[in-house]
């Protein structure tokens, strides 16, 4: 909302208050000041000057060299490009040093001719003028006088009023608040009362939307432009003057906060009827748009059934005041906030009126605003108002007495605000302590309904600065969320330590991206959750897995030239677990992606692409102490799909992008992804077991190179080794793999795979012979169970 300081000053004395002070005053009253604009002539060095002579510039067709009298005792030479003046005109002259909002006028040469200042257009010195070119000032303006003194200047405050304070949505309301805060007097409103009332001429058929409606008929008005003072008021807050009647209704709205509407009486046949709209009724509004109404909406109609206005929102195109209007019917009413809000939102039609009605106007202001408008119309547009105001229904009573619990006040404020001061603040706000010890609340403060609302007012006016800070707190135990968070941070830090960048992707993805999802449990029809009204199809589905986001991030990075990618993300994914019914599952997972070069480029090593064993190693690093297995499991849309298994459970899924998908994202090599169940990972990664004692005696190792068919997997050999019961075998690890596609060193369909076996006894240091014996025993058993030989 725009607030003019000049306008405010008609109600409360703000002399000597700088814009900064007013900003602070409002800010700490809970009104956000978004912008402060100064209007009017900024500088004292802009003076009235008379043009005495104007001759053609010797070297520029479009410039003239003028001699002006700025009241300095001698003429001043200024080069000027304007054309709209004649010698003898008075114009604003910016003397050297005049500051036009950061631009300072100086003495200069224009095309070789000296120019000592600038003759100004209105817009250049913060004023408005209908003409282009120099601002021609009235002849009676005194030469040499600062222009500033001859025009109003104003401060415009752009404020944001919170929804609980509709009483501030007017200049009077804002002035009343400032008077309270400044402990300054508030000027009395000069509004004649109109007590005579009739009920004929208006029917309310929709009192749930419009419980109170008043109208005054004014005959014989002449519609014409408003006087300068009224135009100036409206223009100051950014409104365009239209005609005296419309301008007056706008003025009263911004003066008192009560929206009004003026109908052309000749367009109304018979009584005004306030009714709900018919389903599908079409209403053509002032903005020249047609709106299809519903039975929830309220229209102001007449006996003919035509909708003249959309109640509380906007007038109709055909029933408003125009130049030919002679009789007007002036509406002032109270509309139910929730109903106006509904209509306004549904039709996307918002006006200064609906803005105020949906927040709630002061029911007691309805008659007052009407009376002020009637007074102004008869003063400015002539005509005669009927003595009786048509008044139907009753202004709702929205306030009730409220008890202030002083004990609670003391508790909340730590006793820092005395009871006397609290009472003084409430009194200044217009509340009144009644005989039963309760506070009567004025009609314009319907937001004050409860004890705590009064406390809020006291604290707001007093300021939180007055309440001393207290540093203390109750001890509470850590929650399961704390433990999970700590486990997650350890995993995050481990991955960052392993060279991974943590990503954060948006949780709403597109339908297409769902194909990139790699959840532990494959998705079925109806498993994804879609928002009803997405902002765009790119963000329509809650991610069922974290991999789509990571793949999109990889794509982005590959496109910008990243050669090596190590990415991970941790967070929630979503799934409809009810087979189409709304049974939503939210769980957390860890997704990891690697692509590109294994190591960032080095000067002494050849670059190598990552392969699946790199990602497997990373997964293993998440669970030291647990053997990770990849159990092949086909994944639609992926290659090398596998379940990640450890400690006998499925922890997540593993896959490579298909070569086709890989090409789509411009990756030059394979891209591997894994999605791990974070809940399981947290449990397994917690070190809860007792530690193992260190071996007392040294172990011995023996290497064995096994020649086996290509098809024999490491897992088959490990499984066979696991079955052999040799008490001295303490462990084994695969340390070499060799194959020769040319068939020269080894038949092409065979491979050599080497293991290092460790032998150890818990009782003694083993002798060579004992180790050899045990080792040979193992080799013999292996050769029996597998199609292998030893090299």
């Amino acid at each position, binding site marked *: 909302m725009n607030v003019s300081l000049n306008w405010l000053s008609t109600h409360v004395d703000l002399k000597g208050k700088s814009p900064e002070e007013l900003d602070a005053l409002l800010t*700490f*009253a*809970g009104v*956000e000041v978004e912008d402060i604009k100064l209007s009017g002539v900024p500088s004292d060095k802009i003076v009235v000057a008379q043009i005495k002579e104007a001759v053609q510039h010797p070297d520029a067709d479009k410039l003239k060299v003028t001699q002006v009298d700025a009241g300095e005792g001698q003429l001043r030479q200024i080069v000027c490009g304007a054309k709209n003046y004649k010698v003898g005109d008075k114009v604003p002259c910016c003397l050297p040093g005049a500051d036009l909002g950061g631009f300072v006028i100086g003495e200069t040469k224009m095309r070789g001719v000296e120019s000592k200042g600038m003759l100004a257009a209105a817009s250049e010195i913060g004023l408005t003028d209908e003409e282009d070119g120099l601002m021609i000032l009235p002849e009676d303006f005194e030469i040499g006088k600062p222009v500033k003194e001859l025009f109003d200047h104003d401060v415009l405050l752009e404020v944001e009023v*919170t*929804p*609980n304070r509709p009483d501030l949505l007017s200049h009077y309301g804002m002035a009343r608040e400032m008077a309270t805060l400044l402990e300054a007097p508030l000027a009395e409103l000069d509004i004649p009362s109109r007590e005579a009332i009739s009920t004929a001429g208006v029917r309310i058929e929709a009192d749930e939307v419009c419980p109170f409606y008043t109208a005054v008929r004014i005959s014989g008005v002449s519609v014409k432009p408003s006087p300068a003072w009224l135009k100036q008021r409206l223009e100051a807050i950014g409104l365009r003057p239209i005609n005296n009647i419309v301008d007056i209704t706008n003025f009263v709205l911004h003066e008192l906060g009560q929206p009004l509407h003026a109908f052309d009486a000749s367009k109304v046949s018979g009584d005004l009827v306030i009714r709900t709209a018919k389903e599908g009724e079409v209403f053509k509004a002032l903005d020249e748009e047609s709106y299809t109404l519903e039975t929830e909406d309220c229209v102001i109609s007449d006996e003919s059934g035509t909708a003249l206005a959309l109640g509380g929102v906007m007038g109709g195109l055909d029933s408003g005041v125009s130049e030919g209007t002679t009789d007007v019917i002036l509406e002032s009413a109270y509309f139910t*906030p929730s109903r106006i809000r*509904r209509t306004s*939102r549904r039709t996307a039609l918002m006006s200064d009126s609906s803005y105020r009605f949906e927040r709630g106007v002061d029911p007691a202001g309805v008659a007052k605003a009407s009376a002020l408008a009637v007074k102004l119309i008869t003063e400015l547009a002539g005509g005669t108002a009927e003595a009786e105001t048509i008044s139907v229904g009753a202004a709702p009573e929205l306030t009730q007495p409220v008890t202030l619990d002083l004990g609670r006040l003391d*508790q*909340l*404020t*730590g006793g820092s605000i005395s009871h006397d001061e609290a009472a003084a603040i409430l009194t200044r706000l217009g509340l009144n302590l009644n005989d039963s010890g309760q506070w009567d609340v004025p009609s314009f403060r319907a937001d004050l309904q*409860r004890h*705590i*609302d009064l406390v809020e007012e006291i*604290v707001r006016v007093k300021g939180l600065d007055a309440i*001393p*800070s*207290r*540093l203390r*707190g109750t001890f*509470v135990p850590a*929650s399961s*969320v*704390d433990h999970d*968070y700590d486990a997650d941070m350890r995993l*995050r*830090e481990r991955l*960052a330590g*392993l060279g*991974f*960048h*943590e990503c*954060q992707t*948006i*949780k*709403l993805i597109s339908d297409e991206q769902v194909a990139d999802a790699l959840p532990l449990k494959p998705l079925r029809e109806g498993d994804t959750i879609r*928002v*009803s*009204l*997405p902002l765009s199809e790119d*963000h329509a589905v*809650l991610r069922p897995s974290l991999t789509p986001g990571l793949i999109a991030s990889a794509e*982005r*990075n590959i496109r*910008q030239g990243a050669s090596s990618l*190590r*990415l991970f993300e941790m967070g*929630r994914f*979503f799934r409809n677990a009810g087979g189409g019914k*709304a049974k*939503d599952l*939210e769980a957390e997972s860890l997704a990891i992606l690697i692509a590109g070069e294994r*190591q*960032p480029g*080095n*000067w*002494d090593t050849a670059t190598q692409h990552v392969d699946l064993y790199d990602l497997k190693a990373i997964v293993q690093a998440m669970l030291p102490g647990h053997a990770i297995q990849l159990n092949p499991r086909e994944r639609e849309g992926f290659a090398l799909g596998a379940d990640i298994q450890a400690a006998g459970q499925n922890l997540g899924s593993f896959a490579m992008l298909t070569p086709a998908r890989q090409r789509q994202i411009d990756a030059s090599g394979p891209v591997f992804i894994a999605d791990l169940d974070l809940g399981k990972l947290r449990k397994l990664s917690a070190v809860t077991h007792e530690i193992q004692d260190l071996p007392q005696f040294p172990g011995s190792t023996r290497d064995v190179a096994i020649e086996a068919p290509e098809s024999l997997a490491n897992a088959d050999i490990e499984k066979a080794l696991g079955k052999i019961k040799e008490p001295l075998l303490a462990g084994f690890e695969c340390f070499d793999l060799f194959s020769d596609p040319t068939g020269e060193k080894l038949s092409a369909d065979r491979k050599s795979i080497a293991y290092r076996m460790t032998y150890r006894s818990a009782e003694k240091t083993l002798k060579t012979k004992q180790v050899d014996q045990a080792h040979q025993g193992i080799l013999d058993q292996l050769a029996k169970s597998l199609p292998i030989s030893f090299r």
Partner: protein
Amino acid sequence: MKDQIQSTQTEALAQIEAISDFRSLEDARVGILGKQGSLTKLSAGMRDVAKEDKAEIGQLLNAARQTITASLDAKKEALQSEADAKALEGIDLTLPGRSVHHGSLHPLTIIRHEAIGILRRMGFALADGPEIEDEFHCFDALNTPEDHPARNEKDTFYFDSGKLLRTHTSSVQIRTMEGGKPPVRIIAPGSAYRRDEIDATHLSVFNQLEGLYVDADVSLGDLKGTLEYFLQEMFGSETEVRFRPHFFPFTEPSFEIDVKLHAKGQAPKWIEVAGCGMVDPDVFDSVNGNRKDEAYSPAGVTGFAFGMGLDRLAMIRWGIKDIRLLIENDTRFLKQFA
């Protein structure tokens, strides 16, 4: 014999002196002191030495062995230091180090961890709740009337089921109070959703940090002290903090909190960082209604709540001008947090 010893020693020393590699040195050692070595052979001649001369010759032999051994050791050391020096010759210290991957935590994780760290020191425990919420927990229980603008489907993501994506983490307040009795002292970081078009300052999915403290006698002084302390830990102990009265449906009184930011090359300015307030008694009543008890009777407990945008904190901390950088995961951006 004496002469032989002398000449063997002289010869040996000369031989050792001339050696320039480890292998020759070892050969020389064997050739002089080994089983068939020249001095060893000479020692064998002791058998033939007259008994009265044995002591003297023995001493001479021992002295020769010691001298030669010392010479061998000295030579070995000399050769070793020569080799050591040679090994370091020609190394280019100016070549770049071998590259390794430098990983990083996401800036939001960093700022969240820092905020959580401060609040945990102050005795807050973590809590969370679902992101797919119902209207009761997201709005009704938080005293937000049915026709409140935030509940419009233009501003909030709804599902056909009638559920919605929570518009703030404040729903966790309700979940926590429903699940346990006072005292409650929790913080809840998490995602929230609003139907905002994504641009340089808006995301439709953003990150908040919620806080709630409910106990007997929680006051405005506690609210103020807690948040001042938190923000000064976050932004520096000299940071000015101000509380502007504001309006939220679920707190009364309510405030917005600004900190005065001194960015390099800019005039200091107040920046809004959080909203807070005393828990509205209506919120306690809603919770009691759902709990079917009076554990949170407004007559018995009071509390404060606060919420802040973590994305915003990250933008302020690192001067991030476009919020989209936080979800694009461009590694050129992420690497700056390594």
